[in-house]
């Protein structure tokens, strides 16, 4: 009798919990659908120039304009393509220089003045990553004027976050035993960094830098859109002069150098790790 009663009670509890789950799930779905409907209305229905889009056939015709390659353009693309690669290279290198103090401050186990320096470094990493490269480029173009220099600084500042974060985390995860051994010889802080910590993390850090360089090729390819040099600038010009086949040529060129960078970075990273 006692047992029966207990089971009854448990059953009611189970049914209550299952009902509650269904209600939560149902209202969650409803909220999701409402937000979606609101978004579609606000961004797609009201914000699209339906007049200009025209019929489905018009749309196909718009896409069709891009089919075809302007081969005459390629000879003029080599220099901007090289410039894009150089922006990525210099930007990444300068970014690495900026990274050094950020890594030092941002790894909990080596940060010089405890929480304060750690938080400063983490803040810098976050700022670097949360500002988009186009925004960095707009900022630096305003500072140093049109041309590759703005792009280089944009890439450098945008790179600090990722490289520093990954490197600092690598340092936080080192084996502390060699550190102890080097300290025991009477070595100072810098010597411990150089002998016990750097050898442990260097391959990882170089791998991260290569990866970031590869991403930076992609970034510097579009930075020209805001006047920061490289292929993006040519892309922008082709668009403005309605040379749609030229646009396709630039896209192919961008794809080409990105693939090149990816292969190079992959080959180097595979040898490292």
């Amino acid at each position: 009798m006692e047992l029966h009663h207990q089971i009854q009670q448990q059953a009611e509890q189970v049914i209550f919990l299952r009902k509650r789950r269904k209600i939560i799930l149902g209202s969650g779905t409803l909220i999701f659908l409402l937000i979606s409907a609101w978004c579609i209305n606000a961004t797609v229905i009201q914000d699209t120039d339906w007049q200009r889009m025209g019929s489905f056939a018009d749309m196909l015709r718009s896409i069709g304009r891009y089919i075809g390659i302007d081969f005459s353009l390629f000879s003029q693309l080599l220099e901007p393509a090289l410039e894009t690669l150089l922006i990525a290279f210099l930007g990444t290198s300068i970014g690495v220089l900026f990274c050094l103090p950020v890594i030092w401050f941002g790894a909990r186990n080596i940060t010089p003045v405890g929480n304060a320096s750690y938080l400063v470094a983490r803040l810098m990493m976050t700022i670097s990553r949360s500002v988009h490269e186009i925004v960095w480029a707009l900022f630096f173009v305003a500072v140093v004027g049109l041309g590759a220099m703005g792009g280089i600084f944009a890439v450098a500042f945008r790179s600090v976050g990722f490289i520093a974060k990954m490197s600092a985390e690598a340092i936080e995860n080192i084996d502390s035993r060699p550190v102890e051994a080097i300290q025991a010889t009477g070595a100072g802080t810098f010597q411990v960094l150089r002998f016990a910590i750097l050898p442990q993390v260097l391959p990882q850090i170089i791998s991260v830098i290569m990866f970031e360089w590869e991403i930076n090729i992609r970034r510097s390819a579009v930075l020209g859109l805001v006047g920061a040099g490289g292929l993006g600038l040519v892309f922008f010009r082709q668009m403005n002069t309605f040379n749609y086949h030229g646009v396709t040529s630039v896209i192919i060129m961008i794809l080409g150098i990105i693939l090149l960078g990816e292969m190079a970075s992959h080959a180097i990273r595979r040898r490292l790790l």
Partner: protein
Amino acid sequence: MPILSVQELQTRYTDNGPDILKGITFEVEKDDFFAIIGPSGAGKSTLIRCINRLVEPTSGTIIFIEREITKLSKSQLRRARRDIGMIFQEFNLINRMGVMDNVLSGRLGYTGNLRTLFRSFRRSDIDQALFLLEKVELSDHVHKRVDELSGGQRQRVGIARALMQNPKMLLLDEPTSALDPKISRDIMRLVKNMAEEFGVPCLCNIHDVALATEFCNKIIGLKEGVTMFSGPTEQLDRNKLNAIYAMEEL
């Protein structure tokens, strides 16, 4: 005058934590091979790390050749550490570096930051490193990376690194625990020979009582941070061992 004199040493890791060492006192003389024995958790590693302040003692005094270790400033401590070579259970070598760089790192206390940055050690240091590698029978492995070596060979690199400091005392933290019994004996013999040849006293953590009695002339036995025995090896008998290892006998 003893090389090292430890008086009433106490340590705890956190302010309100338990005492790991509850007042340890002993002295190491010029020609001692001094063993610290005891079950795991007795505080052996902590004790040996207090000597060069890899672990900060809470109270008590450590006098090492007329220097009060516990009162030294950071730079004074670094200078004192140069005189104390240390050999570790897991060797604690830098795996991505070669045998030479690992041995040379024993000279870091005498090397400037610029030289450290470029790993350009003095010619005399390189000569000494090669001499010591010859002594520990690793002359054939000079150009290898340490991760290519066997456990016994790695510990020999560790010994050479410690001797590179021209130490006035050696600290050994379970130098043989990661090695098989035969290699363990070889390593202990090597350390003892080197210590005698260079006139360096040794303070050695070791849980293997047989090795301790074979190689060491004095022994201190710890249990839960308390001294259970202290004296010459000959005085350590069955009863005293039982007191130290009581928990393990049960």
